[in-house]
Structures are given as structure tokens and as C-alpha cells.
């Protein structure tokens, strides 16, 4: 059976009525992975044995009439989440042999709800990239066209859902790493408000920006998964103690009377024609659904990429200092002392993009440059956040493209890091502002590649944003298309 034909709620119903079993669903997933992953390279680790054992337990719970929101549902997670006694590599050679000694809070929550964790997904090394080409496990391929990238850094998380390998996944989003691959793979991906979801046990890239986000085949599943992982966690001092609403409860509320802003800085000349056309059509749908569309301005948008690549690299250089060959990870040592051991381990363990970002971040934080680069960028971040807060006094949410182009071809941007960085221009500002945003399918290019629509919500207004996404999804057919594999 094809798993991407049903919503999680439908599958839960089938499981409860005994029309299928979790073991059967999990076997279907494993068979699908077996049949497609040689071409797509989505999984770094498949946990077949553990998954089938968890599925058998889920079936017992279902038979006993107990269980949670996700009991028996096969899910996979980006290889950045610690999963006890399973490898967590972050797609890096330096963590190639790392076995998680504990579960991330989000993984604990998934397990508590009964999810069956099928495996760990490919990604850009340490979540640094926009194409999933920076992986020690090799590039992930886009299920819609294997010559193209799936986007990044959660490329595996998006491709796995698009290819019907699992029902839903978790990724992480530091500058667009859930939304951009969701857009490129034609699935739904959500970056929650900073502080909404615990990062405890998630390998850190840029701590003032990182958020965990769900990826699913439709808006309802995305809402369900967000509800399952959201909430305050005493183990993450940046998680916010505010109640988690039931995201499914008012999902059908519609958008009539809502004010949706179009930030003029996002509708630029460089926008790909097919993207422009699809987003214009989406705006028309929202008008027909009764939303009021108004033009707004986020005047500091053009500074977001520069601001981000200073702050994210600075934080990365600090976070990645822990990979020194002492407590975990690869050690390379020719016997020339401690500092040499550090240097050799890190040089052998990190890939080119990670090294580049550590270097940039170290430079921005180094004596003599700290004020000019790091503090300057932090001040510009204040201006960017202020842009959003001002605009949210005028409108309920924003509508923009996710990326300036559909997925590009593998290998076409690897030699030009700056050009690659600029492709994140529409997703980065929301990470800097800390607000929530999501990507949902809104069309296809002439070449047949998916195009995503971005909704940006007020801080902690995920429910309202999901309602708008659901209304659009119900009015369109884009989410029903699946790639031929």
C-alpha cells in the first residue's frame, strides 16, 4: 500500500478498527525504503528491527484499546536527533561512530504518543546547507526528479515524505531548513516559533535560531505532529512555558475576514516565472476564500542574509568547538600532543562547508572584528525583528514564496557558497525574527518540480497559520500529487 494516500488520522482509524496493523504499516514502509532508497539516498540508518519491535508493542496497545496520537504510525527523523542506542551522525564523518546515550525530548514525546521510529534521515552535515549535497553520506535526490536537489538541510526529511517512505518526519530549521526542502519536494513543512519546541538532545548548529519542525504530506498531519512535540521542557532553558493549543481543534476555521500581507520586498525581479505564477494563483485562491490581501513592507529584508551568515556562523563556530576528539566522535592522533590531536581530528572529521562556516564564524568573533561583524549583525537583527512586529500590527499573517526558484540541479551551485546562501533569502528573516512560518505545495514548474507557498504567522500563532494553510489545501489539489518512482 502507498502510505501517502492517507492522513495520520485515517491510518489511526484503520489501526483502531483492525483493518491494518502497525506491523503491516511498518513492513510497508521498510519495503518502500528498500525499493526506492538506492535511487534517493534518503536514509542514513534504517532501524528495521527496532521499528518492527515498536510496531508489535503498538499493535498490543491498539488491541487493548489504549495508545496515543501516533500509536503505530511509522515516522522517521533527521539524523540530528539523539535516539537512544542508535547512531546519530549529523551526516558528518566526525560523528560516524556516535551512538546516542539518550533520547532527545522530541523523540521521547514521539515515543510517548506511540510513534514507530523507522530510521534516521540524511541531511546537510550539521544542518549546514540548502541542497543536501554537503553530506558525508552522499547527496539526497529529489523524488520528483533525481537529477535535482531535494533542498536542505532537512532534505531527507522532505524527500522521505514525498517518496512515501514514511508517513511524516521531523527536521530542523535554522534558516529555512524545513521549509525550503518541503517546498522543493512538494510536502508541508513547519518552523515553529522559537521556543515552541524543545531542542534538548538535538545537535546544535546556531542556538539562537535552531527550531525543530514537522514535515508531512498534508496540513492536518503537520498540525498533529506539531501538537505531539510542542511544549515547555525544563531541559531546554530556551523553551517557552506557554500552553500548547489543540492544533486540530479549529483547523477548519477558514480565512474569511483574515488580513494577509504581501511583503513587497519578497516579490522581486529575480523571482522565477513559474514561482511567481504559482504564488499569484495562491493569492487569488485566498481572495476567493474571503481573506483580505494587503501589500506591506519589511524594509530590512535585503540585509537578512548578511545578518544571518554572520550570526549563524559565529554560533556554529562556538557550538562545534565541542568536536575535539575527546568525549565523543572521531579522534585522529599522530602523537604530537593535545592541540595537534584536536586539529587533526577536526580537519579529518569536518566537511568543506562546515569548515568554511567555522572559519567565517571564528573570524567574526575574533578580536578586532567582534564589534564590526558580530555586534553589528545583532543590531541589524533587532531591526529585522522590529519589521515583523510592526507588520503584524497591520495584518494577521504574511504570504510569500518559499524560495526564489524550484529545486536546482545537483552540482550546479557547489562551487559558489555565496550564491547558495542567497537562495535562502525568503526563509532566513523569520528565523532571525523568531516567529513561525510554514511551506505548503502551491504548484509545479513547467519541468514538473514542486513549488511552495510560505505563510508567516505571528509569534506563537501556529494555530491560526495552520488554519489558513488548511483552507488553501482544501481549495486546491497540489498536495494530492505524488512523484512516480
Amino acid at each position: 500500500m502507498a502510505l501517502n494516500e492517507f492522513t495520520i488520522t485515517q491510518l489511526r482509524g484503520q489501526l483502531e478498527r483492525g483493518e491494518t496493523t502497525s506491523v503491516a504499516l511498518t513492513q510497508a514502509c521498510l519495503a518502500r525504503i528498500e525499493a526506492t532508497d538506492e535511487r534517493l539516498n534518503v536514509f542514513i540508518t534504517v532501524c528495521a528491527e527496532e521499528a518492527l519491535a515498536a510496531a508489535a508493542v503498538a499493535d498490543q496497545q491498539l488491541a487493548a484499546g489504549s495508545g496515543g496520537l501516533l500509536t503505530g504510525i511509522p515516522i522517521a527523523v533527521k539524523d540530528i536527533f539523539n535516539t537512544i542506542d542508535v547512531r546519530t551522525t549529523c551526516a558528518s564523518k566526525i560523528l560516524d561512530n556516535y551512538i546516542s546515550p539518550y533520547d532527545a525530548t522530541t523523540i521521547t514525546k514521539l515515543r510517548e504518543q506511540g510513534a514507530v521510529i523507522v530510521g534516521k534521515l540524511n541531511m546537510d552535515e550539521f544542518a549546514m546547507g540548502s541542497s543536501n549535497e554537503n553530506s558525508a553520506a552522499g547527496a539526497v535526490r529529489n523524488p520528483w526528479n533525481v537529477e535535482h536537489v531535494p533542498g536542505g538541510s532537512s532534505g531527507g526529511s522532505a524527500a522521505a515524505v514525498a517518496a512515501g517512505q514514511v508517513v511524516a518526519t521531523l527536521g530542523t530549521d535554522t534558516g529555512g531548513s524545513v521549509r525550503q526542502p518541503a517546498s522543493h519536494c512538494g510536502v508541508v513543512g513547519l518552523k515553529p516559533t522559537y521556543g515552541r519546541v524543545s531542542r534538548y538532545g538535538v545537535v546544535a548548529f546556531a542556538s539562537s535560531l535552531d527550531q525543530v519542525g514537522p514535515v508531512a504530506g498534508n496540513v492536518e498531519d503537520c498540525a498533529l505532529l506539531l501538537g505531539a512535540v510542542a511544549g515547555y521542557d525544563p531541559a531546554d532553558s530556551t523553551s517557552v512555558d506557554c500552553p500548547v493549543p489543540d492544533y486540530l481543534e479549529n483547523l477548519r476555521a477558514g480565512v474569511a475576514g483574515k488580513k494577509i500581507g504581501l511583503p513587497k520586498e519578497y516579490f522581486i525581479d529575480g523571482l522565477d516565472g513559474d514561482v511567481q505564477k504559482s504564488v499569484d494563483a495562491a493569492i487569488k485562491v485566498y481572495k476567493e476564500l474571503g481573506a483580505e490581501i494587503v501589500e506591506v513592507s519589511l524594509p530590512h529584508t535585503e540585509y537578512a542574509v548578511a545578518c544571518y551568515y554572520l550570526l549563524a556562523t559565529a554560533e556554529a563556530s562556538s557550538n562545534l568547538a565541542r568536536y575535539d576528539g575527546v568525549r565523543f566522535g572521531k579522534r585522529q592522533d599522530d602523537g604530537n600532543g593535545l592541540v595537534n590531536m584536536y586539529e587533526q581530528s577536526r580537519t579529518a572529521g569536518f566537511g568543506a562547508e562546515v569548515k568554511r562556516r567555522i572559519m567565517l564564524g571564528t573570524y567574526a568573533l575574533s578580536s578586532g572584528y567582534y564589534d564590526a561583524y558580530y555586534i553589528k549583525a545583532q543590531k541589524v537583527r533587532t531591526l529585522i525583528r522590529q519589521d515583523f512586529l510592526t507588520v503584524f500590527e497591520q495584518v494577521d499573517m504574511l504570504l510569500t514564496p518559499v524560495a526564489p526558484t524550484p529545486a536546482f540541479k545537483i552540482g550546479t551551485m557547489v562551487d559558489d557558497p555565496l550564491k547558495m546562501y542567497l537562495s535562502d533569502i525568503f526563509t532566513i528573516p523569520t528565523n532571525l525574527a523568531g516567529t513561525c512560518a510554514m511551506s505548503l505545495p502551491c504548484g509545479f514548474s513547467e519541468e514538473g518540480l514542486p513549488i511552495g507557498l510560505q505563510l508567516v504567522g505571528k509569534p506563537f500563532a501556529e494555530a491560526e497559520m495552520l488554519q489558513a494553510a488548511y483552507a488553501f489545501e482544501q481549495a486546491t489539489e497540489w498536495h494530492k500529487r505524488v512523484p512516480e518512482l
Partner: protein
Amino acid sequence: MKISQTDVEKVARLSRLSLAPEDLETMRGQMDAVLGYVDKLNELDTEGIEPMAHAVPMANAFREDEVKPSIGVERALQNAPASGDECFTVPKVIE
């Protein structure tokens, strides 16, 4: 030019990375392009603007100082490249 090969070598040392001589110029060029681009921020007057470290306004997160179970020595050492006597083992630090 924003950054010289000497600067790149210094940053590599600070980052505990060693660059092969043939990679030095590529790294310099790529860093130079990014640093040239981020200069854009200087177009903005940020006099009097507070730097922002965090997306959510939040004071320190305090908790009671209570003794709780921890991960344990065995788990903590399970990924160590070298260990002994319940400790991480490192190359000799003091000659």
C-alpha cells in the same frame, strides 16, 4: 580584498583546523566573497539600536538546585575515543 592568506592561516589556527597549502587560496577567496557581501550591513545606521542575542525576550531561566539522577559514567563514556579509570583519556598535556 577583505582577508589575506595570513589572516586565513590565523583563523584556521584559532578554529583548530589545518588547511593544506593548496586549499588556502580557495578558502581565502570564498571567505572574501562572503565578507565582502556582509559589508552591506554597514549601509545601515545602527546607532542606539540594542543588539539582539535571542529571538524571544527572556530573562535567565532559574530552577531549584536539586540533586537528580544523571546519565551515569558508563553512558557518558560510551562514545569516548579513549577512556580509563572512569575518565576520558587525552594525550599528555604537560611536558
